[in-house]
């Protein structure tokens, strides 16, 4: 099994993999530069994870040992280069937040995987370093999941 963080990213890529505005233009990770050509086709989503905190204060004992809550910062960034309008940025945010909320409902993917998620901050910025004005809506989500100590691959 993959680390819990990788499982969260994979789940999010599936949930957000075909939204109305960003379609299938979704990349997971940040290893390689995005090219202008990709953005010319339409707005994109980039999903990656940053910091994670482990809540030792809230640790509990379970049959598999110490159960820890991990809180992972997930960045979901919408990149827009076909228009300089904030409306598109907000439309992407709307679709992402609604899709993630729906995924936490009973029977949906995140609930089934025992992953919680909620938005922490949103930042919309503009960049004019290249030949098309680039608008970015950066959403920071906090994803929570529980694992037994030493078994970060098994979400409880």
């Amino acid at each position, binding site marked *: 099994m993959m680390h819990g963080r990788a499982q969260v990213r994979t789940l999010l890529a599936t949930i957000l993999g075909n939204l109305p505005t960003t379609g299938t233009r979704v990349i997971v990770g*940040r290893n390689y530069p995005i090219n*202008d050509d990709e*953005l010319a086709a339409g707005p994109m989503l980039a999903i990656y994870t940053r910091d994670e905190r482990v809540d030792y204060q809230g640790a509990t004992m379970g049959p598999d040992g110490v159960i820890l809550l991990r809180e992972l910062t997930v960045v979901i960034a919408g*990149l827009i280069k076909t228009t300089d309008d904030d409306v598109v940025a907000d439309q992407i945010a709307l679709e992402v937040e609604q899709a993630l909320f729906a995924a936490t409902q009973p029977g949906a993917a995140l609930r089934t995987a025992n992953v919680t998620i909620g938005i922490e901050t949103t930042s919309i910025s503009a*960049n004019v*370093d*290249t*030949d098309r004005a680039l608008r970015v809506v950066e959403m920071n989500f906090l994803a929570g999941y529980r694992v037994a100590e030493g078994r970060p691959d098994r979400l409880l």
Partner: protein
Amino acid sequence: MPTLADIKAADLDRVWFDTARGLAELAQGPAGEIPVRFSNDFAEARVAGDLVVNGSRPVVAVRASDAGPLKRGAGLVVRGVSYRVASVQPGDAGQMLLELERA
């Protein structure tokens, strides 16, 4: 006796914006064709902390005497590609720089 500014201005016409010798090229502006010196070098944008977007940064130099209609937002076709003026940067010696964005 001509001033240094006069000499520089004359050089712009005779040398730097000479399309016949290939030192400049013609672009289609709002008021007709004008000579421009065009560059479109690689540029990257860093966004959302860790993401990099590769692109280019198109810039033209124009004579200040041609720049009147080229306000921010004006259209300019260079090498068959339609651009908009994104930023007008006054220069010296009768020359101005225009940063462009894809229309």
